[in-house]
């Protein structure tokens, strides 16, 4: 039997090639398994990992699914599960896979949970990560921190002793002392991403109400979160026009100490090395995203990508796809991706894989961050929620609106697009 399986992976860099190569390896294994069972199975994997950006990827998948020509397997944000399942674009992996069997029973349950929606296991986690806060050690020293104090920072952050307000102060100090240039005291991500929800959480904001499953707009937290960025701009520690900075440029700058503090993802570890910073451990310190105030908590968001199986008229194809995804989730195969792209593993046994276990970054990041990580909620309208959240931030950040006004606008927008699915606090 000849089957062609197409795989599309969004938001991928070159180092993420194992997202689809894993499927190719799995295909090989599956073919062999079938051969043993006396079936001749011939799987051709066609993969595409090159998309301009997340926007284009999602648009492409959506339209393709609408046209009935969706790729069989997509690697995408877990947030897409809600709308795509609602629209009927994807089928649950649990239709084809035994979740109690190897290797699925080895996957961290909380990650599996993230790939589920409405109690249905729609997909399988493809990787894990987390989004830490970074400090440039050299700069911190110059503004008066000792090595020990720096080493103690992650703990102070975790305990809530060191907050975002301290970040502002230190960043300001760095700028005022001209250790870094204006606008480089705090150097956030230059485009929309899950990271910004972290800051909302830092000020006590909740994304979803566990009880009712509705999204939450905490106006006070939102305003304080916006205020924080407005303050950062006002204090010259962050550039007003920062959003939209070229990613390549951004990486280069943070990797080489041009910024005092910033935030990013666990995969940055590898990227910094590519940008010329081979000595991460001695130059950069990382921690959770600090709390913003007393109500808030230090936190980090993990935003795993997931393997999803799309709806296909042929159930056999869906089954083969599901099995490929399953095999690709085996610790050994997944570790290839985790280490190559500096993501975190998805399964417990990966710590027993030498490749993975020997990697200090994977090890430490897992320990320091993953325990505190939460994910954004799978909700049909979370996309609209996050769009609105970011739009408000942009307005406050660039000064087109005051934080309060921005929150007003966000409220209007969210009310209109989310309707009953929103709780305003």
């Amino acid at each position: 039997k000849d089957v062609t399986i197409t795989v599309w992976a969004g938001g991928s860099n070159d180092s993420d090639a194992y997202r689809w190569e894993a499927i190719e390896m799995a295909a090989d294994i599956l073919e062999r398994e079938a051969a043993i069972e006396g079936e001749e199975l011939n799987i051709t994997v066609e993969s595409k990992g090159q998309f301009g950006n997340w926007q284009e990827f999602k648009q492409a998948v959506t339209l393709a699914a609408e046209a009935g020509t969706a790729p069989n397997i997509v690697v995408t944000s877990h947030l897409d599960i809600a709308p795509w399942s609602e629209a009927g674009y994807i089928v649950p992996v649990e239709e084809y896979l035994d979740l109690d069997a190897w290797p699925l029973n080895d996957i961290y349950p909380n990650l599996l949970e993230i790939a589920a929606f409405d109690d249905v296991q729609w997909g399988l986690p493809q990787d894990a990560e987390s989004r830490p806060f970074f400090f440039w050690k050299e700069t911190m020293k110059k503004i008066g921190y000792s090595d020990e104090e720096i080493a103690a920072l992650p703990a102070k952050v975790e305990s809530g002793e060191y907050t975002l307000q301290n970040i502002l102060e230190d960043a300001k100090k760095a700028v005022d002392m001209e250790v870094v240039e204006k606008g480089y005291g705090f150097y956030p991500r230059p485009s929309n991403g899950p990271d910004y929800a972290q800051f909302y959480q830092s000020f006590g904001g909740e994304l979803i109400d566990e009880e009712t499953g509705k999204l939450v707009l905490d106006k006070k937290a939102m305003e304080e979160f916006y205020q924080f960025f407005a303050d950062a701009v006002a204090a010259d520690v962050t550039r007003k026009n920062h959003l939209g900075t070229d990613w390549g440029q951004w990486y280069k700058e943070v990797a080489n100490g041009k910024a005092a503090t910033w935030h990013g993802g666990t995969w940055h570890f590898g990227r910094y090395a590519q940008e010329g910073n081979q000595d991460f451990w001695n130059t950069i310190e990382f921690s959770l995203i600090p709390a913003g105030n007393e109500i808030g908590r230090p936190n980090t968001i993990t935003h795993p990508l997931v393997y999803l199986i799309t709806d296909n008229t042929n159930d056999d194809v869906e089954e083969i796809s599901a099995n490929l995804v399953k095999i690709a989730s085996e610790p050994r195969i997944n570790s290839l991706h985790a280490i190559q792209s500096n993501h975190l593993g998805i399964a417990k046994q990966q710590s027993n894989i030498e490749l993975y276990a020997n990697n200090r970054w994977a090890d430490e990041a897992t320990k320091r961050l993953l325990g505190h990580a939460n994910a954004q909620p799978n909700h049909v309208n979370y996309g609209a929620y996050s769009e609105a959240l970011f739009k408000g931030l942009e307005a406050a950040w660039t000064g087109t609106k005051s934080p309060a006004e921005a929150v007003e606008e966000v409220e209007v927008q969210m009310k209109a697009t989310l309707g009953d699915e929103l709780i305003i606090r």
Partner: protein
Amino acid sequence: MQRSSWLGLAFLSPALIVVLLFFLVPVVLTGIFAFTNMSTATGVKGGSYVLNASSLRALVDAGLPEVTRNQIESAGYRIDEKGLAALAGAHGQDVAEELSKNHAGEVFTKRRDVERALKDLNSNPIRKTRDRKAAADLFKRSILNQRYQSREAFETALNEAGIPKSDRPLITEIAYTGWTWTTANFDLLLSLDSTWQYAKNTGIYVTFTLAFNVIFGLFLAVTTFYLPAAQATTFRAIWFLPRILPPVLYIVLWRWFTWDTGFVSTVLSGFGYPSKNWMLDTEYHAWVTVVLINGFVGASMGMIVFSSAIRAIPTSMLYASEVDGASRWQQVWHIILPQLRWPILFITSYQTMSLLTSFEYIYLSTDGGPGGSTEVWALAAFHTALNNYGGNLQYGLGATYALLLVIIGVLASLFYLRLFNFKNLLTKPRIEG
């Protein structure tokens, strides 16, 4: 009808078909979409009927009695006679009996539990996962998480599950995943500040770019007209390049030119200016770049139209003005410009339409930034309907944006048609046979 009429219609028909399919039908469809809540989640083609945890919550909010909710939630997987009989049929009496012995009458909430029960069987003849799942499904009595493609199928299922008749309409309504009619898009559009911001941005964009196009196009046409042929051709070629260069590449060049590490910054840093992003530094920077990027492209069109219009002015007229004593400036001002009235009007109207509906270059350069300050109407429509980070494509809202743009564009072009005295363009065919 004359024979040439048939030939005329025949000649026109390929164009008509293409235009109908890809201009008129889309406009009509867009008009329709504008009155729906269509989005990624609803799909475009219509939906199916699903009850799941989310819709159940929504149902409760909408007033579904607790009893019914419990009834739906607790239906689950029941090891009953009917299921066992089916299982016996599929996998043999032994299996059915053993399962019956272990779990008869039990209700499992999840299929996974049924699967486990099946796996735990001593005989365990069901080795393949897929078969086991099929076997487990024989006991399924819940309608949760089940996709029904048609209303009838869903209602039949509700009926079989014993849902009270009075609750069914509400359940059916909420379980529907497809789009529904609404005028909310228009209300939303009007209530959002950003709408007005987009309108304002579009105004700025069109006005300034247009002004640049026309004025600079004129400037190029007039100056190259006076230059010797070789120089004129060179400059025309340079200015034609923005138009023929692929937009993606053209924007790459601009980025390289304006970005922090780009040409301007590098050169200025030589003079001690801190390098910055000249494209996105402030709103003003962004606007200047956007206008220049589009202006450079548009100017070439103006240049060519005006150039050919100037060339169409009889040289004797220019000679006449010279022997009449006019200086070059007077010649341009009194003789050339007045005679370019129609080309200028043409370019103005043509470019107004083009600019109103274009966003490609903005999308590739600032993408509406910084902070949405260069987000024009067409780009907003594109972002809303097709291109946002959240991946929830709001087709309905996007169509509303597009529809308004269509209306404005059509009105504007009708206005220009009047201005052009359209009848004059239409000469009657001279062969009547």
